[in-house]
């Protein structure tokens, strides 16, 4: 996290600890990282149990080893991973599994759109790497607590995202390790549903969101007989159309009054 400019300030006689104590520029630079690390550790309290469940589920499906762990880290989205596991366990076609993962993560589009102003003035490398760390928790924390300046936000976002990623991946690895010794009839798939609800319920803050969810839910039940993935996509589209129509009607009424 130390930049070339920061390194130029270090003389051979000084230890890193001395500099951290004495140099105000370094102290200011370290602040977003310290803040992000504290925030990340708080987030991990809620995320680690779910990560272990993801790892246990992966081991029950025999999706283990470094490649599986690397894929989990790159995916960095437990709910969609669980949904993908459920599709794999049901014997769905690869395209249905991929569609399910992408559909579950469709909300990341919204997060990206909402955070775009924090990335707009940033260097290209950060606009390519930074979004990899966009998850529900980092989005919510960064929008609430993230520093204002570009440089400080960059440091905060990377420290937050990487710390959570390391903790998350470690919890999955732990789950993969202990999975084989657990009973095989655990209803762990219910964890995925619980997680989806945990994400959904706080978003039902107004009539339009509620209507969107109800329309999408009813459409999903009506489309259960459709091939896996396509029913969910169709249902989500129905909900989006309903929400969009209500939003449009509300903005028309607002403009008229």
């Amino acid at each position: 996290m130390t930049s070339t400019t920061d390194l130029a300030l270090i003389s051979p006689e000084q230890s890193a600890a001395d500099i951290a104590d004495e140099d105000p520029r370094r102290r200011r630079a370290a602040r977003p990282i310290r803040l992000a690390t504290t925030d990340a550790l708080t987030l991990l309290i809620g995320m680690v149990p779910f990560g272990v469940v993801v790892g246990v589920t992966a081991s029950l499906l025999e999706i283990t080893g470094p490649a599986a762990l690397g894929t989990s880290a790159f995916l960095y989205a437990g709910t969609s991973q669980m949904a993908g596991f459920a599709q794999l366990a049901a014997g769905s076609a690869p395209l249905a599994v991929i569609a399910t993962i992408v559909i579950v993560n469709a909300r990341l589009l919204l997060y990206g759109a909402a955070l775009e102003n924090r990335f707009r003035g940033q260097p290209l490398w950060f606009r390519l790497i930074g979004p990899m760390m966009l998850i529900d928790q980092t989005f919510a924390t960064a929008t609430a607590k993230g520093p204002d300046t570009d440089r400080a936000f960059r440091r905060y976002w990377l420290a937050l995202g990487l710390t959570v990623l390391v903790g998350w991946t470690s919890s999955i690895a732990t789950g993969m390790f202990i999975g084989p010794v657990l009973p095989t009839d655990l209803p762990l798939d219910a964890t995925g549903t619980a997680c989806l609800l945990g994400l959904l319920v706080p978003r039902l803050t107004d009539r339009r969101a509620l209507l969107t969810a109800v329309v999408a839910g009813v459409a999903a039940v009506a489309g259960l007989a459709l091939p896996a993935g396509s029913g969910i996509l169709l249902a989500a589209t129905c909900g989006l159309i309903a929400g969009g129509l209500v939003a449009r009607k509300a903005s028309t009424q607002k403009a008229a009054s």
Partner: protein
Amino acid sequence: MSPIPVLLLGALGTYALRLLFITLVPAHLLPQRLRDTLQFVGPAALAALVATDIGHAAGHAASIWPTLAAVVSAGVIAAVSKNLGLTIVGGLGVSLLVSVLV
């Protein structure tokens, strides 16, 4: 097809979603109407998934009660606490309890 390449393709698709409105098509360039609709992506996608999970569980006698227990308990915990970790752990705990009892 091995599951890892399938999950990897899902991860690539997810990366594209993350990148789209930040780097590829910056959100401020989108038409206002589309930006208005995007706010409903979360509720629409999540509600469709929850309903599908419940629908699938209803087709299997062994999983309906643990799933229903997870749904009800997680819904209540989420509404009260707004804490994702607590919701997951609570939903799983109640679901495990019901699976042992039923």
